[in-house]
Each structure stands twice: as C-alpha cells, then as structure tokens.
C-alpha cells in the first residue's frame, strides 16, 4: 500500500513538472545555435602557446567539433574577421588555404577584419569569390565583392547578419592596400542597416571586428541588435555578457576555442541564451579528415616554398657579428626598411638578425631563419637629438653583445667603446650632412623597437609626443607615425626584395666607425 502511494506521488510529481514546463515554455519558440570563431589568422596547425606544453587548436579538430555541435541543433557558423592572414601557412599563399578550410567547414558568413586587407584589394576580391559564403563589411565602400549584410533562415528563424570592421583599418596596413576604400563610422552604419532589416528578419546579429570594448559601446549606442559576435581584441569571453538587450560573445584567437551560443527565439525576440567556449585540444579530440587533408596539403607546399631559391648571395651575409659591428647583412636589411618606407634613415637592432647566409643560393627558408620574428616596418618622425639618443643607447651593451646594437641605413656614425655607456657616440651624419639635433627626420625601424623593445625609448617617446592620428582618404595623418605596414612581415618584404634583385652583394661601407 505504502509503495502504491509513493508511486502515485511520483507520477503526480512528474505530471506537475511536465505541465509547468509546457505552461512556461515560450509558445512558438525555436532554437538556434551560433558557432563562432574570430582572429583565426591562418593558425591551421595545432601549436603550443607561449608558456604551455600542451598542443592546442588546429583546423581539423575545430572542424570536427563544429560538425559535432551542428548535428545537435540548427546552427549558424560565423567568423568575426582576421581569418586569412597571420601565419606562414596562410601568408605564403595570400590566405587561399584558410578559405579552403572555411568552405570545407561550411561557414555561413564572415566579416572582414583589418588583416583581410593586408594582401591588397585585388587578392581580397579573389578570396571573396573563392568563398562559398558571404563576406561582409557594411561600413566599407569601394569594394563590390563585400556585402553589407546577409539573411539566413534557420529552423524557421529569419536571421539578419550585418558585418562591420574597425574604422582604424587604414592606419594598420599599407596605404596601397586600402586605396579607393572608405571606412564609414560604425554606429551610424549599423543603425542604418538595423532599420533596413527591421520587419524582414526575426533577429539581428552583428558580426563585428571592432574589439570587445567597442562592441560594448556599439551595443550601448545602437538599439535593435540581438547579438554581437565579436573579434579583433582576441578576448576569451568564457560566457556572454549583455549590454541593454544585446548579447556579446567573442572566442579568443587562432581557433583555440569554438564559441557556442544557444538561443531560444520567440516572436522575434531572444528569450533565452546560454553560451560557452569549447576548448580545441587535439590530445582529447577526433579530427575531421577532409580538413586535415587540406591543412596537410598546404603545409607540404609551405615546406616546398622554404626550399625555393629566390636569389644568390655574392658574398657571405654576416648576421653573427651584427651585435658588435657594422654588418653587410645589417646594411642590406636596414636599406630595405628605409626604401620601403621612403624614410630618411633606418635603425634596426642587430640582435634581430638571428643567423648568417652563406655565399651562394638564397632560399626563402634562409631569409626566414635570419628574421624568424613576426616583425613589421614602421617609420616614425624623430628629432636629430632623439636619433642620437637611440644610437647612444644602442651602443651601451657592446661588452655583452646585447641585441640592441644598431644596424643603420642613411646614417653614419662614430663611437668609442673605451668611453662609458651613455658617452660612446661621436659624430653622426644623415645623408652625408651632420645631424641637426633640432630638425625632424623620418626613421624606419621594426615594430619591436618602436614599442620599446630591447629598451629603446626614442621611438616610443616620439609616439607619445604626438599620439593623435587620423585617417584621411585611406592614409594615415599623424604627428610622428608616418608609415605602419602591420600586415606584412619584414621577412616577406626581404624575400620580395631578394627575388627582385636576384644577386645580392651588400658591402661594409663605413656606416659605423670605431674612433681611434
């Protein structure tokens, strides 16, 4: 009897719970899963992050996880920009391998990031045509291949997807890459397209390459956005946040995680949201064989490219002594910085040249070994005194063969290591004339020194003195920053130059003289 009563109680409890669930469930509610990736940067192969011993990421594993999650619920797979540029695997082929992977994964839409412009508009147009999904940029005019938005219908939900990219794009790539393009203010643009889509769709997603803080500002400014899928700041937003009525998500970088946002939509409103990031850990996961094949094919082509002969060295190119004396390899590389940026002079750190190239054939791999770091060229306006300060600092660690020793172009100087650090520099000339401490000169360098790397203060001090910049007609207008090609690694510029010159024969020219 007692058992019978408890069975009836249990049945009643289940019935009540079921009825409550039915009563409170949104009427006509439908589910939508948004899977998202941002700032992939062509990191198709798994790798160990700085400070970690564990392999993470990898497009084949990302694809497998995405496929698994798509099977569970009606889904959209979105990319929030900076997908095609940033690793050797992608850069050597101008981003084509990434598009192949994205096609295989079945992406539904992506927004361009600032780095999508790094290969120029002609290449970007080719990549867009190769993509089996729309590539968006509502706030960019001048490139017909890009669309402002797309509409997808998933599980009966009509989804409007608007793409926007940072207005600062022209300040972080070569001016030629964005020639003829206009980057419109983001908020006004989104407001316009939200208005246009209203009534045509149930929910609106903005796929943004603006950065986490800018996404929050956008959500606070423009009403009517249901979700912002973000990128640019490489933020590992473990869970979504909500600003006003707008949900904001972002999924770190390099495909190290896959973002998952599960929505319940009813009568054109998001009534429930749950989010998480799925770690992509190869040791614990299956891989997608089709995508693995694409990754391996292009990786093999990278290896082939590394062995490709691009020119010939008529002499040994000495990188080994670049920390203590003028080096012909230092002259060669510094000259390239100066020429590319059309600066008056160039200063690089000898320690940035990691090895030598022997007389004979030069391969792509040789250049990559000399310049293994992801550095790019910048040019900054410095006073003659700031140039003297930079050189003086560069000479202060010769005894210990510190990497800060300067290799130069357009400059000649004398020094004595017998004098104490801080007083070693003698005469300095630029273009054959004694340097004027009060005059301004444009000086090319790499981004590492510009940020204060190796302890150099002169470049960052010049940036601090004139921090404001504006973008007019696709070029930078700034007090002191006159060239900023963040999308092209210095080593790739050197590869191009060796390929163009064919025979390389840099000499020691007395640019750096030791005083008697």
């Amino acid at each position: 009897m007692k058992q019978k009563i408890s069975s009836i109680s249990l049945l009643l409890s289940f019935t009540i719970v079921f009825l409550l669930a039915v009563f409170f469930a949104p009427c006509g509610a439908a589910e939508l899963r948004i899977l998202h990736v941002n700032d992939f940067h062509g990191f198709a192969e798994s790798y160990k992050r700085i400070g970690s011993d564990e392999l993470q990421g990898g497009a084949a594993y990302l694809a497998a996880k995405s496929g698994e999650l798509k099977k569970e619920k009606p889904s959209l797979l979105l990319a929030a920009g900076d997908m095609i540029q940033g690793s050797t695997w992608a850069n050597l082929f101008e981003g084509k391998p990434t598009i192949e992977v994205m096609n295989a994964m079945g992406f539904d839409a992506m927004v361009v990031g600032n780095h999508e412009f790094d290969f120029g508009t002609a290449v970007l147009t080719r990549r867009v045509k190769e993509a089996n999904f729309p590539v968006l940029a509502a706030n960019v005019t001048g490139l017909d291949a890009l669309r402002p938005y797309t509409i997808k219908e998933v599980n009966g939900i009509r989804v409007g997807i608007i793409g926007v990219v940072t207005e600062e794009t022209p300040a972080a790539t070569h001016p030629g890459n964005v020639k003829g393009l206009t980057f419109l203010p983001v908020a006004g643009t989104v407001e316009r397209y939200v208005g246009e889509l209203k009534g045509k769709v149930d929910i609106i997603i903005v796929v943004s390459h603006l950065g986490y803080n800018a996404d929050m500002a956008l959500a606070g400014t423009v009403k009517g956005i249901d979700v912002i899928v973000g990128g640019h700041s490489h933020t590992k937003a473990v869970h979504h946040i909500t600003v006003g009525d707008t949900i904001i998500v972002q999924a770190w970088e390099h495909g190290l995680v896959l973002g998952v946002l599960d929505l319940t939509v009813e009568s054109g409103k998001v009534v429930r949201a749950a989010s998480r990031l799925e770690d992509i850990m190869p040791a614990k996961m299956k891989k997608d064989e089709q995508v693995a094949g694409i990754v391996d094919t292009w990786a093999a082509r990278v290896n082939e490219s590394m062995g490709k002969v691009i020119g010939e060295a008529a002499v040994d190119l000495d990188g080994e002594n670049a920390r203590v004396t003028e080096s012909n390899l230092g002259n060669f590389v510094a000259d390239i910085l100066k020429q590319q940026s059309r600066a008056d002079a160039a200063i690089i750190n000898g320690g940035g040249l990691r090895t030598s190239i022997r007389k004979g054939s030069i391969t792509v791999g040789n250049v990559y070994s000399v310049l293994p770091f992801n550095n790019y060229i910048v040019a900054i306006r410095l006073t003659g005194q700031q140039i003297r300060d930079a050189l003086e600092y560069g000479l202060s660690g010769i005894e210990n063969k510190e990497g800060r020793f300067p290799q130069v172009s357009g400059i000649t100087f004398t020094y004595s290591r017998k004098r104490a650090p801080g007083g070693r520099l003698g005469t300095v000339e630029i273009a054959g004339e004694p340097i004027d401490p009060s005059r301004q000169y444009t000086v090319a360098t790499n981004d590492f020194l510009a940020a204060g790397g190796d302890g150099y203060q002169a470049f960052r001090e010049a940036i601090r003195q004139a921090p404001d910049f504006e973008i007019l007609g696709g070029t930078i207008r700034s007090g002191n920053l006159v060239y900023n090609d963040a999308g092209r690694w210095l080593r790739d510029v050197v590869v191009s130059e060796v390929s163009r010159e064919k025979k390389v024969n840099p000499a020691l020219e007395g640019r750096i003289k030791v005083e008697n």
Partner: protein
Amino acid sequence: MKVRVNDAEIHLAPGMTVRHALIGAGLMSEVEGGKKVFDEWGNEIGLDGTLSENARIYLEGERPE
C-alpha cells in the same frame, strides 16, 4: 594611443597589440614564463589582440579585484 599595463602608462602606435604593450612595459619575459594576460573585465586576452585607447590590461595576479 595610450593604454595601461598593470599600473604603467604605455604609448603605442595605432594597430599595436597586447604584445607591444607588454614589450613597452618590459613584461614579455613574464608571459614567456607562463603568466596570462587579462583585460579590465577579467577576460584572458591573446598577445595579438588589438588594444583601444585607454584600455587597461593586467598580468595574471595583478588585476585588482
């Protein structure tokens, strides 16, 4: 562009990243030693993440609660 790394003010050229801010603050070696970097909201951020004007970032253990 002005940002803050822990409590230090750092000036960067437009387009520069978390990595550049850490170089400027002389803290890259700590990251190479395994420390993570966080934004002002407590989210971990990647070294190639772009920073915006007045952004605040912190090395692991340095962010005020």
